[in-house]
């Protein structure tokens, strides 16, 4: 049967991997190509690269790094950050990305999801949603979690799936960087509504958090950054642990 997936996420700024805590306080970790090699050897099932630079120069540097990774790492690569138009899809797909994740760009123009799904197929379009509780409601945030859009997150996700998003990466701002476990309440709420794969993001601190996560119906993958980068949690150990506890893993 199909396995659950373990996905390290690399936030890249000015050619280096960085990781924020609660999306603030960026800290340099390492060279992205080197890290991609390391994660591939460690058995990561997929890699996510987020371009968190805003400048034109930063963007060119990012696609150069992506192409270098894609020339030697042969597992699925998802790319996000600064994806606002079909030209942006084209730019990263030509450099070896397999899937493209949209966030603020889709919030500004939901039609982007539809247009990209029609051109590249739904399997290529990942909706990345940064979600936080506000007044008892799951609210979707834009601009790297800094701006409350006022929109209901569950409705937004429904809308994007209807438009053609083929996968959801759900980032809980409430649990991000806290390392006390994934936001299972939020994930359950989304899993109950959509039938596309769901990648859980935000809150992983230890291997037990992943075991608990995969005990919840409809969750296909667990994504984390800092705990993998810092080697607080090693992917081979994590996968062996999950497998020993009945979660099918690619070992």
């Amino acid at each position, binding site marked *: 049967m199909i396995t659950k997936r373990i996905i390290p996420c690399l936030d890249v700024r000015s050619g280096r991997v960085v990781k924020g805590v609660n999306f603030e306080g960026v800290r340099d970790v390492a060279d992205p190509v080197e890290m991609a090699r390391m994660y591939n050897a460690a058995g990561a*099932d997929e890699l996510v690269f987020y371009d968190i630079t805003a400048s034109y120069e930063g963007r060119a540097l990012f696609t150069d790094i992506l192409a270098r990774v894609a*020339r030697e790492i042969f597992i699925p690569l998802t790319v996000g950050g600064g994806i606002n138009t079909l030209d942006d899809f084209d730019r990263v797909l030509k450099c070896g990305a397999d899937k493209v994740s949209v966030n603020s760009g889709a919030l500004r123009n939901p039609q982007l999801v539809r247009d990209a799904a029609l051109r590249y197929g739904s399997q290529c379009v990942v909706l990345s949603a940064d979600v936080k509780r506000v007044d008892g409601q799951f609210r979707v945030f834009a601009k790297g979690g800094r701006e409350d859009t006022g929109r209901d997150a569950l409705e937004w996700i429904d809308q994007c799936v209807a438009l053609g998003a083929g996968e959801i990466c759900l980032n809980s701002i409430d649990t991000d960087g806290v390392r006390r476990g994934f936001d299972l309440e939020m994930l359950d709420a989304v899993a109950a509504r959509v039938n596309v*794969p769901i990648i859980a993001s935000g809150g992983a601190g230890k291997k037990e958090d992943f075991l608990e996560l995969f005990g919840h119906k409809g969750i296909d993958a667990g994504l984390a950054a800092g705990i993998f980068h810092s080697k607080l949690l090693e992917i081979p150990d994590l996968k062996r642990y999950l497998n020993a506890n009945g979660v099918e893993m690619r070992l």
Partner: protein
Amino acid sequence: MIAIVDYGVGNLFSLRSSLETLGLDVVVTADPDKLCAADRIILPGVGAFGDAIQKLQATGLVPVLQTEAETKPLLGICLGMQLLFQTSYEFGQWQGLGFVPGAVCPLQPDLEAAGRAELKVPQIGWNALQILQNDPIFKYVKNGEYVYYVHSFYGKHCAANTLAVSEYAVPVPGVVKAGRVYGMQFHPEKSGDTGLRLLKAFAEL
């Protein structure tokens, strides 16, 4: 020389890179002379069957592929594998290249019939490859290695031609073969070391 057929469908960056990593000479082309000169051919593809078969037909390469496949190995990958079949029922009914007897059918109704409607479509992810028939294509892989799938349709009525399957409530043909023609439903160029070893074996057929 391996020729990758370029008919405007899909992203060939990783496929080309994976073959180059193996030290193989690769050409991405729609030129019939280059396909004839190559010693093996790969037919890639992502997207919808109807769109892809129409684009392939528009290149005029279909008769070239049919002739060349008699004398050299041909590998269809993902949608490229599905194009090898006789028929597809993806958004209508389409005639394929007819190398592999059988039909390409939607996963969803068969998952429902199997009582597993909660399984997601497309199947996206890593699944174990169970080898049913020994073949030189498996020279460098063991039974049960994982490969990466992304698909909503799958090959049916092709048991005699199926070399390996992956379980997704139904047995999904992962590798099919007819004569010198091979098909892989998963993406070997995205299946890590396992995928590279399958491509290496193809290059040595």
